[in-house]
């Protein structure tokens, strides 16, 4: 191994100015949740699972609702959304439905759709099916997976029955096709990605796609 002359530098420092956080319990709680929601790897989620409970639901709903105006961390928002689907209390479900339909960010709408699917709520089925029509890849793939997860929980027939109640034949057909496709498992085989030099430029799409 080569010898290097300098590996650890004596970095300059400046003193920090900190306030007493004990005076702001709401801030402390939020920061604790931020840490739990930002774990990167599957092993960290085990810790989070033991510490996050339904008592955090109000603040989780708040985190889930913070979008562009708050400069919110999309990863933390998506994680909060996943937890709301696990609690699945009425306020949580209402929050998820609002996010699935009205959040500006298709990544968040997709996360809300997945969370609704995981909740096992039959009434969510038409909202999941509607998201299949999205031109956004994340939202439509999430909808397809969410319908599959819901069908695993309550059965495909109940899912389709719920969707047919909105009397949109095309939507029912779309949902049926999505559930059928999920049953056909992809064949596992080794494939190779393509070097970027071999492709055209990524398409221009400055604005977020609108769900049709």
């Amino acid at each position: 191994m080569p010898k290097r002359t300098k590996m650890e530098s004596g970095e300059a420092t400046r003193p920090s100015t900190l306030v007493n956080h004990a005076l702001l319990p709401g801030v402390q709680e939020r920061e604790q949740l931020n840490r739990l929601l930002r774990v990167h790897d599957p092993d960290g989620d085990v810790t989070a699972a033991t510490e996050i409970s339904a008592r955090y639901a109000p603040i989780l709903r708040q985190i889930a609702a913070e979008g562009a105006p708050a400069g919110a961390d999309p990863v933390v928002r998506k994680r909060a959304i996943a937890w709301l689907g696990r609690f699945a209390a009425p306020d949580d479900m209402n929050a998820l439905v609002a996010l699935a339909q009205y959040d500006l960010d298709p990544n968040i709408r997709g996360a809300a759709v997945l969370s609704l699917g995981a909740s096992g709520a039959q009434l969510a089925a038409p909202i999941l099916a509607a998201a299949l029509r999205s031109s956004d890849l994340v939202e439509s793939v999430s909808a397809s997976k969410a319908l599959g997860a819901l069908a695993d929980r309550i059965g495909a027939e109940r899912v389709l029955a719920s969707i047919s109640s909105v009397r949109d034949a095309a939507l029912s057909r779309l949902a049926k096709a999505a559930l059928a496709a999920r049953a056909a498992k992809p064949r596992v085989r080794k494939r190779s990605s393509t070097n970027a030099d071999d492709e055209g430029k990524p398409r221009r799409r400055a604005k977020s796609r609108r769900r049709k």
Partner: protein
Amino acid sequence: MSKTAVSRVKTVRVLPITRYSPYDSPALDVRPLTKHTARSLAKASRVPLRVASKVVTAARRGALRSTSHVAQLSMQPEYIRRIAGVALFDGDPRVAITDVLPTRGRVMSDRPFQLRVSIASGAPANGLVRVTTEWAGKPFVIERFITVKDFSRGYVDVPFDRTQTLPVGPATFEVQLLTDAGAQATFRVTCAVLPSNPFSLSISPRDHFVTGSFSACAVRSGGSMVTAVTVTLSNGNATAVAMNTGFTWEFWDGPVGSGTRVENGTGSFPGSISVPAFGTWSGWVVFTSPPGSGVFNKLDGKEDLALKIGMTRASGSSVSGEITVRTMFRFGLNITRVGSESFTSLEYSDLYAAVDVTRTIYERRDVTLSVDRRHITNAQAGGFTVITSESEARDLFEQWSGPNNDFIDVFVVPSISGTGFDGLAGDIPGPTSHSGRKSGVVVDKSGFVDGSGNARLNIPYLGMLIGHEVGHYLGLSHVSTAGNLMLSSSGATDTALNYDPQYRTIIRHGWVRID
């Protein structure tokens, strides 16, 4: 005898001194809905005036407290989304930081200053503002309480006293607003700290935005050693400074002036140079050192060199700066976009800006990286565009790891959702083969829609996340040291790597080599 030569020079476009980094947050036009007029709401949200008018009228009646209430006004979902992106409803628990600027318009070196943080809320509450400063030294934090009154005024000033002044160079301020009601907003802004004395020249590594200074990397290219640096001139005076375009350079073995001068020469930047009043100017210089040259021989022997570059003002006085140049250990990354057509052109450039952040993180610890840009199309990717389990992530490794170039596969997927992770490394350390269910790392692209409706990636966070997962692949486990990249829940500002054991672990991985 072979000699080192200046092989390329270029003038670089610099950003305004109070928005000095391409990764800074844009100023936002976000305010409580009741403070919007129909016209301002229409402009900010890009909805038709008649729609904005209907919303503002309803808001003044006190009828709008959430998106569900707006939906009752019967309008397209897209309009509701856009309005919620720029307006805070009555009682809305969300808070926003709309801008951060130095109160005097600039930050001067070694002088106290204060930042004005502009804030908005639909339901003001007591809380705190925290500013984490990334600069040439260790990051430090300044906090101050805020009250409901601050929200009414619309801003809060955060003072940096005489013990918290900054030296010349870029400084990034990561600002958080937290309220006792549990709300949070974040904002990031970078300032070029200008010299009080009042003129300086600094040298930094090329190709990535640098807060602080660290070593420049010499790389092998076509048998030669190539060293690329950025030269920045900073002017803290109220008048522009004209410069001569020529410069001198010297490579030293040991400290400049007291060591041994290995090679020296001259070069020239194109065009004319005028450093604006209270502004900066930057240019790139690339040195090529062929085999047999003094610089090549030193770097080939893994010795560090000091590089000094000097320039002169048109008025005659000179200015110079220095940086350490060294060869570095290197690994490669196959950056693979999964569902490539779903990445917009902005997201595509954000992704590679994030990879530059990853490179900066590792080069601070004298390890560099190469990149192979790859992609998997939407049709090929299928369900892999949204990863919902660890098993699915490992299916992705098993099916798509490669090519056999001894690079680490980094799969950047549009979303990891419904799981407890946003990244996954195949193993710690990862294998030195492209087969099986452990070869690769996967990360969520960290996509979001900004206030203008643009699909973007969270560049500082994604750069850190790629660095974190690659760190696992190179053998690093989680740590609990504040500010370290390998914290289990590291944020965008947690980017430090230590020498022992982290650097020493990384360089032992079978896919890490030295130039």
